[in-house]
């Protein structure tokens, strides 16, 4: 052995130590080029943005002060309560259905055929935005909260069961194996080996989805799915921007409140 540190080191050491990743470089370059191309094609120009800012300023000016008349508030209150009901019911039903569907879709627990069937179902449920699904349900079951609830149940299953399946696929197989080795049946293994590992994250997903359903429940109303969406949309169309502001402020308040509640709930199930 000679004293030299690396007798057979390659001539270009830096390149040997950190070899260039050409596919990655190519991907970034392609993305940049496409973005530039898309901007040039889509007729986006600075002048229109400036003009838009001016319009926005006028809109905001007309919003103040928020409308706090008693009859308007009563209307908003009813709509808001309906929205919250839609969100909570849709989350409850959707999350309850997501658990078995998510388990069925987890490839480490479920037989291959069942897993692919469940994944197919999830993919279909995820294909459309809640508003589009809501339009379908309004046509099917008529105007009102039922359509809104069904639409959000669909999107809840799509989101929660997909992520829940991923959570289940990430569990420690060793812990499950140990429970299996005691002679426990499948249900027992799920209960003592699988659920303890995934429940905290499942609750996290459910709470996040409640939050997201609260926001979405204000939207399904626009297409007739019940809740605050309809009064909000009407206020826009009638240029009652002060009422719009009141509704927006209340929605913001409720979402913030939800944020606090959800972090508490997550702590409890840690």
């Amino acid at each position, binding site marked *: 052995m000679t004293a030299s540190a690396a007798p057979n080191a390659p001539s270009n050491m830096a390149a040997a130590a950190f070899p260039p990743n050409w596919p990655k470089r190519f991907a970034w370059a392609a993305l940049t080029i496409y973005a530039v191309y898309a901007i040039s094609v889509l007729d986006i120009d600075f002048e229109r943005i400036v003009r838009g800012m001016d319009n926005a300023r006028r809109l905001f000016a007309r919003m103040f002060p928020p409308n706090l008349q008693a009859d308007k508030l009563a209307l908003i209150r009813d709509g808001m309560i309906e929205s919250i009901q839609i969100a909570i019911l849709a989350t409850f039903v959707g999350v309850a259905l997501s658990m078995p569907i998510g388990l069925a879709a987890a490839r480490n627990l479920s037989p291959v055929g069942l897993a692919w069937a469940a994944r197919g179902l999830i993919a279909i449920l995820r294909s459309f935005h809640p508003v589009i699904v809501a339009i379908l349900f309004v046509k099917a079951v008529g105007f009102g909260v039922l359509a809104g609830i069904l639409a959000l149940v669909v999107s809840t299953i799509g989101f929660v069961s997909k992520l829940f399946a991923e959570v289940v696929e990430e569990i*420690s197989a*060793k*812990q499950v*194996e*140990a*429970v*299996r*080795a*005691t*002679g*426990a*049946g499948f*249900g*027992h293994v799920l*209960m*003592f*080996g699988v659920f*303890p*590992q995934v*429940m*905290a994250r499942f609750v996290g997903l459910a709470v996040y989805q409640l939050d997201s359903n609260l926001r979405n429940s204000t939207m399904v109303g626009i297409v007739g799915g019940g809740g605050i969406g309809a009064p909000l949309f009407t206020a826009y169309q009638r240029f009652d921007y002060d009422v719009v502001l009141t509704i927006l402020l209340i929605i913001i308040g409720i979402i913030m409140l939800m944020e606090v509640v959800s972090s508490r709930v997550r702590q409890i199930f840690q």
Partner: protein
Amino acid sequence: MMAMDEAVRQPGAAPVVLRLDRLRKEYRPGLPVLKDITLDFDKSGVTAIIGPSGTGKSTLIRCVNRLVDPTSGSIWFEGADIAQVRGSALRAVRRRIGMVFQEYNLVERLTVMENILTGRLGYVPLWRAYLRRFAEQDIARAFELLESVGLGADFANRRADKLSGGQRQRVGIARAIMQSPALVLADEPTSSLDPKTSVEIMELLADISAKQSIPVIVNIHNVELAKRYARRIVGMTGGNVVYDGKPDGLTAQHLSEIYGGEEWQ
């Protein structure tokens, strides 16, 4: 060549708890990890299986409770060949075989008590397990075991992920014994532990094996520990048994045959 422990072989000697007969495992066809292993295990004490990594020790032990399915051969346990059993028959066999793991394999988010009572899951209806309505005497026994593995009742409600490695392995042992097993398998139970804790854990296994007369089969890397606590040593290399006998019969020459070379000794 093979130093057989005569007592094991003689008919009418200590009853055989487990008999492996030409047990073979091939993960890939034509490449056996276990090459027709034939071994008897009687009802007494600790048997240590030693051998280099990748020699099939773990596979051997996992074939016994069928976490790994053997390719051919038979496994006689409590009067039946369990090499091919499935479903509820397999679960009934597993209930009678406790297992201790290298990385403890406790369910991290369950408490110590819940982990120990996991050993009773094979006997408890699902709804009772869900509501944690285990039988009074099972809970009493869990507390007893907690005591006898050296942890004590105040550990009962701690979560498993708050324990040290040695404490976890003690819970792992309590869980295995909670099954009231006819046999305990221990797959490298000390390999993730420091030397002092390793000795304590082996001591505990040997102690429980003697006091409750449960035979323990342990895979172990540490030859010194194996010699100190095992009544019998099985040396494996390349999927074959090359030594089977008392610890004091294990010579430097045997060890070279098992592990290859001599420089490390």
